[in-house]
């Protein structure tokens, strides 16, 4: 009985230990297959200026498929970094010698990975120990720098908008006055009202014009005859020609008048002298004065002559003839 119990206990412990070790081995092999630890591999290397925190053990992707891991990282040259990639043998026949390797990220905040781009089929496949060219990509830092600039611009823009909004609220500027000033608003309303009236008038005018043009297009009407009757058109053309001639004559006349009026402003001719020269004007005035005086005296002399005995008979006779002529007319 005790022996059977002991055997049972031994089997139980054996099974317990076996399953425990099986779990361990299963874990190791699963991890191994996932990390391609037991897969035949070959090595490639890439020289980067900046590996952006890439670590040994990080994955290598080709067309979105994990094909290997980072095996070793070491400094190269003055400040570059050489990264050795352990690539599974199966991927050998897809990577060409002109393929490029770049550093990317497994998701936005994921682990850093090396991504290999296909390359051209014109080139042969890579071999163990080959060095791949570098595909420069934007790092998270670069993206963040760009975002920072965008943020700054956004801050400036929102700041400007804040000032703009404040001015609008305070009624500053044209737009602010439009929004805040009651008088401007009233004026604006009035403008809108005027515009509405103008639009209505324009509409009416357009209708009138429409009616008018319809009338013009009526057959037998003036416009229609002007446009369609060749006789009327010839007459009109003649009239226009005559008008043109008249206009030419008028132009000539105007030119002559211009010349004449120009001469009137000068003093080298009689009319200009009379109009513009003060001494001449004075002389003319003096002559006119003398003439006035002379005519008065002459009038007196002639009055005296009428009463002269030598001429009295003549004037008497003339007066009688005038009287007879008036009587005949009446």
């Amino acid at each position: 009985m005790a022996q059977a119990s002991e055997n049972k206990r031994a089997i139980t412990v054996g099974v317990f230990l076996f399953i425990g070790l099986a779990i361990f081995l299963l874990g190791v092999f699963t991890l191994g297959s996932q990390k391609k630890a037991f897969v035949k591999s070959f090595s490639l290397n890439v020289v980067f200026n900046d590996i952006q925190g890439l670590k040994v053990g990080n994955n290598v992707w080709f067309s979105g498929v994990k094909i290997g891991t980072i095996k070793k990282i070491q400094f190269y040259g003055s400040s570059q970094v050489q990264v050795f990639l352990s690539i599974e043998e199966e991927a050998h026949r897809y990577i060409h010698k002109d393929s490029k390797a770049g550093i990317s990220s497994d998701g936005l905040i994921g682990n850093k990975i090396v991504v290999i781009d296909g390359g051209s089929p014109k080139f042969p496949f890579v071999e163990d120990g080959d060095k791949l060219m570098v595909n420069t990509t934007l790092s998270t830092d670069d993206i963040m720098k760009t975002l920072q600039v965008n943020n700054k611009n956004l801050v400036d823009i929102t700041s400007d908008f804040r000032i703009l909004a404040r001015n609008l609220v305070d009624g500053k500027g044209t737009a602010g006055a439009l929004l805040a000033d009651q008088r401007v608003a009233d004026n604006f309303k009035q403008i809108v009202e005027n515009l509405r009236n103008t639009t209505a008038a324009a509409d009416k005018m357009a209708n009138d014009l429409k009616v008018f043009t319809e009338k013009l297009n009526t057959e037998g009407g003036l416009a229609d005859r002007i446009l369609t009757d060749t006789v009327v058109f010839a007459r009109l053309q003649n009239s226009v020609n005559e008008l043109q001639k008249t206009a030419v004559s008028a132009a000539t006349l105007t030119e002559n008048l211009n010349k004449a009026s120009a001469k009137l402003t000068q003093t080298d001719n009689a009319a200009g002298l009379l109009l513009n020269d003060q001494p001449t004007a004075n002389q003319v005035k003096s002559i006119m004065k003398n003439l006035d005086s002379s005519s008065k005296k002459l009038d007196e002399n002639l009055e005296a002559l009428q009463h002269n005995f030598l001429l009295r008979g003549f004037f008497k006779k003339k007066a009688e003839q005038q009287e007879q002529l008036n009587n005949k007319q009446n």
Partner: protein
Amino acid sequence: MFLEIYRVHIFVMKFFKEFLFPPYEGKEVLRQCYQVGYRSLALISLTGFITGIVFAKQSRPSLAEFGATSWLPSLVGIALLRTLAPLLTGLISAGKVGSSIGAELGSMKVTEQIDAMEVSATNPYKFLVITRVLATTITIPILTFYTALVGLLGGFLNVTLAESTSFSAYLQTALDSITFLDITASTLKAIVFGFTIGMVGCYQGYNSSKGTEGVGKAANSAVVIGMFLIFIEEVIATQITFLFRT
């Protein structure tokens, strides 16, 4: 205190000296493996399963805040395989097994059974201490693997209920960030924890005194000191692993 350290040192060194030489107490080791390992399996499995579920459930909101719930399996995997599985197993074993060993050996000490064994030409250290320490050193790593597995299953339950993820996809993501260094470090940690639990329990029980009161004290000390040492070892192991990782 220094005398105590010296006694511990002698006790531990005696293990390595006695362990290599016959007679080998195979049956007793097997019996202790049964007691320490198999009898703790249900408790450890349940605790590990609950830990996996709770950890995944508690971590989900934080990850969901920045749309990274797809990282949950990876987080559960890292947490369980690197730290939680060995630590949880160690602490539970320190409570269950450590106290049991301390109480059992303490009881044997105060009832002078150990002295009787010495008189009857049986090496009590070899029969009582080495067998128990070997049993804890072997079974606690095994229990750790169980804990990791059921913990991952617990995490999977939470993930698949929320996102209908397949087990293979879950396992792939969970193991994606795990390296062989993590597995090795966890296994070594579990071995050290097992050795510590067995050694502390045996030392406290083997050196107990003052009758039944001493038995209780030995059991209590085995748990407290065992847990304390496990935490200290966890810190040291993490630092050493970190050195290897970088």
